[in-house]
């Protein structure tokens, strides 16, 4: 097997995995703050995609400002969802499961009824190919990867150094303790939920020109995000990045040797194997 093929395969895997890491980070942020898994998370990714579609393809705006607007809009949608629905579900895992499923159906079906059932292309702002020997990546994907890495870095900085970011981490670790220290739990939860949704929206906006947009587009990234966060460990940012890279490796290299179905099986087997060795994921707290 030529080495270029292996490098190409790894590159293929990593490029998208890093975007799915964004989705995973949003999911895990919401989980650690509210104690629930939001199954409608992929639908916020979808909303980000459609926001970008409308900005670029319908209103003819430039891609970059559209993306920023889309991230903001999805964050706002997150605020609405948190205020109306999710704040009533703190810690109620089963109820949150059902409610987020309901929301998934409402949003997906709503999108189909409003935006149409067919996939809609989003014109790409970037064209061309970067070539290194026989290894190829499109400029479009390269930009996406850079943006994803940038957003992960911004999120890290936000959680590490900003006051609200630190408050979020405090709430995630110990809500009662955080409340005693004067952290406004309600506000922090709302903001955490919004940031989580915005991350999904960002991923949707980034991939919109690459993959086009359609109502059920959120299903795939959310499954990938699940794999990433179980492997990496709930609530861990470095864990999610590592989980993403692992998934990228398995999918990229695996595709060279196995059928796509076998690669999917491999991904899930990786999840099972990691959990058996480290029951809380690679970076999960013991």
């Amino acid at each position, binding site marked *: 097997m030529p080495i270029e*093929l292996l490098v*190409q*395969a790894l590159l*293929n*895997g990593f*490029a*998208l995995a890093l975007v799915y890491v964004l989705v995973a980070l949003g999911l895990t942020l919401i989980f650690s703050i509210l104690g629930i898994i939001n199954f409608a998370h992929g639908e916020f990714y979808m909303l980000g995609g459609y926001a970008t579609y409308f900005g670029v393809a319908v209103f003819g705006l430039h891609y970059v400002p559209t993306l920023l607007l889309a991230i903001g809009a999805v964050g706002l949608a997150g605020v609405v969802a948190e205020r*109306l629905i999710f704040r009533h579900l703190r810690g109620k895992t089963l109820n949150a499961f059902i409610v987020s499923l309901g929301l998934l*159906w409402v949003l*997906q*079906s709503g999108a*189909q009824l409003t935006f*149409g*059932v*067919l*996939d*809609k*292309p989003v014109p790409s702002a970037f064209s061309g*190919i970067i070539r290194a020997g026989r290894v*190829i990546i*499109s400029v*479009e*994907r390269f930009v996406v990867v850079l943006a994803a890495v940038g957003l992960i870095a911004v999120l890290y900085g936000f959680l590490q150094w900003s006051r609200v970011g630190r408050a979020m981490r405090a709430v995630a670790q110990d809500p009662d303790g955080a409340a005693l220290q004067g952290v406004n739990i309600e506000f922090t939860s709302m903001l955490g939920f919004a940031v989580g949704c915005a991350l999904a929206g960002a991923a949707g906006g980034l*991939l919109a020109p*690459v*993959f*086009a947009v*359609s*109502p*059920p*587009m959120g*299903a*795939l990234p959310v499954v990938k995000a699940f794999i990433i966060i179980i492997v990496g460990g709930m609530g861990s940012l470095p864990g999610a990045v590592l989980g993403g890279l692992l998934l990228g490796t398995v*999918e*990229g290299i*695996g*595709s*060279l040797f196995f*059928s*796509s*179905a076998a*690669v*999917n099986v491999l991904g899930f087997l990786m999840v099972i194997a990691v959990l058996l060795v480290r029951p809380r994921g690679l970076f999960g707290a013991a």
Partner: protein
Amino acid sequence: MKGQRCHGWVLMLAAVLALGTAAPAAAAEKTLEIGVLGPLSGGAASYGVELLRGAEMRSDEINKAGGLKVGGDVYKIKLIAYDHKASAADAATAANKLVFQDKVKYIIGNAVGATCNAVQTVTEPQKVMFAFVCWGTNNLGPDKPHSFRSMLSQWEAAEPFYRWIKEKRPTIKKVAVISPNDTSGLDTNTAVVKAVKGLALDLVSEETYERGTKDFYPILTKILAKKPDLLDVAAAPPAEAGLILKQAHELGFRGAKGWTAGVNPVTLVGIAGVEAAEGVWSPVNINVRSDFVDPKVRKFGDEYEKRYKEVPGVIAVANYGAFDVFTKAMQEAGSVETDKVLAALTSRPYDTVWGRLVIGGKETYRIDRQFLYPMVISEIRGGKIVDIEQVLPAALKALTK
């Protein structure tokens, strides 16, 4: 919040009332109720929605023209459509509701292979006529005399398509084929492989992917390493076919492109982009915007676009055509009774949006239940779909001789 809650309940209430009042009101005029099934939500929704839209288009036309005259009676057509969510179990229940509750004698429209088998367990014992666009080979057979496939399938399209390719471009030797990993995808791949081998071409790669896949770089890296001359995105739906071609283009593929089971070229071009879609050949596509198609098809396409704000794919056209054929057969039979309509259906050709249509297919399925019509091989040139040549499926050739 409060508004939303009210909305849901009001809708439910309205539905319950509608259910209660609808039945007795219809007595004055004769009504012909026709069922439509399909996935109307979820990942496969585009199939079901196109089926239902095609049905709505044709039945509204008939009703606006005063109804369907059959024998001495005039029928208004009433559609009863259910979402089976692409689930076989749910399709069986929905079919039960259509057959036993709504008492329909015709279910015209269904997609997703696994659900067809489930629906047939209900329709066949009850002698309910069932037309679908599922591509599973086992959906037609002598044990299923009331089941029809209302569009060409891989078994009709693949062989003549590849024969045409071989004649037009003799330099093409190495073929790679990729389809989704389900009944229609696998059966399409099988048909393509059979055609390719039968024509002494070289099959270098046969791949399948899980439906819903967006990133084809990994699978394409493997396929392109085999250096195919022709990449056939055989049974891939339009958006996925578009992504495959776009990504193949990015990875440097510049060979010929085929789409044996192409269904909506306009969507494909939109998603792949003009450059990556350049030169895609497809035998079963119908381009409602093409200058070459029948004026009836253009009119259908224009009205569809006006009504639904989307361009119809071949599935919408197919179900529109199926409604056309079945209603014409009812007129021909002078009755809406299924056994008379069944006899009329197979007794003569029908003029439809497809051109002249015959129901045949005995050589392949051991029973004449396959819609056969001339297929037009098209090529995508500069983002436009250009019809190049009309080719007759082998079974149709045999019938018209």
